[in-house]
Every structure is written in structure tokens, then in C-alpha cells.
């Protein structure tokens, strides 16, 4: 993957940022599948949305496309509503 002509920015993007986000997705899915209780799974889903925001930001930086930053802003503002809904559901069920 690393080749001549790859500057520090591309190196950082390919070998640090994207792998970190991807590994986080894997761990979130492990917690989502194995999570012993419902709150564990909800936190995993919330973390996945955060990783999605990070991926959009990384993509926007990598492609010099500022449109994805607005998408990341909207997703970051909205996804916690789902978490609140799940929390309300747990609160009501118990």
C-alpha cells in the first residue's frame, strides 16, 4: 500500500486513521453481538455512529470534499436521539 510519492499525510491516513476506525468497528460489533445486556448493545450502536462520523470526517479530509463535513455534523447531532430513545425504552421496561 505504501509506495514512493506517498507523503506523510497519506501515510498517516492509510496506516493510522483508517485502521483505527476499522478496528473500532470490529470491536463495536463484537460487543454488539456478545453484549450480555441490552445497555451494552445500545452503547455499542452509539459508538458505531461515532465511528461513522469519524469516517465521514476522514473521507472529507482525504478527498478535499467539504460536503461530507456537513453530513458528519448532521449525523453527530441526530444519532444520539436514537440512543435517547433506547434509554427511554429501557427506563420504561424496568
Amino acid at each position: 500500500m505504501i509506495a514512493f510519492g506517498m507523503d506523510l499525510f497519506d501515510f498517516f491516513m492509510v496506516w493510522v486513521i483508517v485502521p483505527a476506525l476499522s478496528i473500532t468497528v470490529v470491536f463495536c460489533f463484537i460487543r454488539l453481538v456478545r453484549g450480555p445486556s441490552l445497555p451494552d448493545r445500545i452503547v455499542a450502536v452509539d459508538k458505531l455512529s461515532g465511528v461513522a462520523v469519524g469516517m465521514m470526517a476522514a473521507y472529507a479530509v482525504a478527498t478535499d470534499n467539504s460536503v461530507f463535513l456537513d453530513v458528519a455534523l448532521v449525523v453527530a447531532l441526530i444519532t444520539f436521539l436514537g440512543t435517547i430513545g433506547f434509554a427511554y425504552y429501557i427506563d420504561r421496561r424496568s
Partner: protein
Amino acid sequence: MNRSLILMTATRYLVPIILMLSVFILLRGHNEPGGGFVGGLLAASAFALYVFAFGIKEAQRLLGVHPLALIGSGLFISLGSALIAPIFFGEPLMTGKWIDTFELPGIGKLGTPLFFDIGVMLVVVGVTLLIVFALAGEDEQLGGGS
């Protein structure tokens, strides 16, 4: 339903931010991704957050009007903007007519597509809030509020 102090405090400043963001998404919809539908969904989600935090009564008081009124006025605005071209210019229905002489700062050129988008936004807000209020109201009726 026991109210969370953290959620109530966060909601008080998140609702204006989300509403401003929805207007921003609405106004940039002509040239970039966005538009009436997404803006309407964002505004409705702001009110849904208010329902979660303060309950359905407070959210209806914040909205001020019944969601059905929003749907009706939105359809009326959209239909009016679609009818401008055939009535005044003799062109096909829903032809986009723009005012080319001046631009408003922050909004850009005025034209019938802008008003069509505003109508779409009002319809989306009304429909989504009808659903949210119905679901939340049913929830509270079921004795969910412990």
C-alpha cells in the same frame, strides 16, 4: 416518565441549534446536497428531542400549531409556487422561475423552487410530528410514565 435534568438542560440549547441547521440545509438545497425534505426531517427531530425531554404537552405548546395546519399550509405554499409559471408566464406547471435582478445575502436568488422547498419542509415537519406525537401519546396513555 421521570425527567432527566441532564437531558432537559442539553435540550434547551440543542433544539435551537438543530432548527438553525435545518434552515441552513433547506437554503443550500439548490446547489448542494440538502433541501426541503432533509431540513424538515431535521426540524422534526428537534421537536422529537423536545418530546423525549419535556413530554408531549410541552412540545405541542412549543410548536404552537397543530401539525395538520403545517401540512395544509405547506401543501398550499408548494401548490402556489407550482402554479406561478402557468398563470403568469404561460409555461408548463412547476417551471422554475427565478428573480435574476438581485440576490438576498445568505439566501441567494429568490425563485419558485425555494418556496416549493419551504412547502415540502412544512409538510415533512407536519407528517413526522403527527407520527411522533401519536406514538408518544399512545406511550403515555399505556401508563409508560412510571
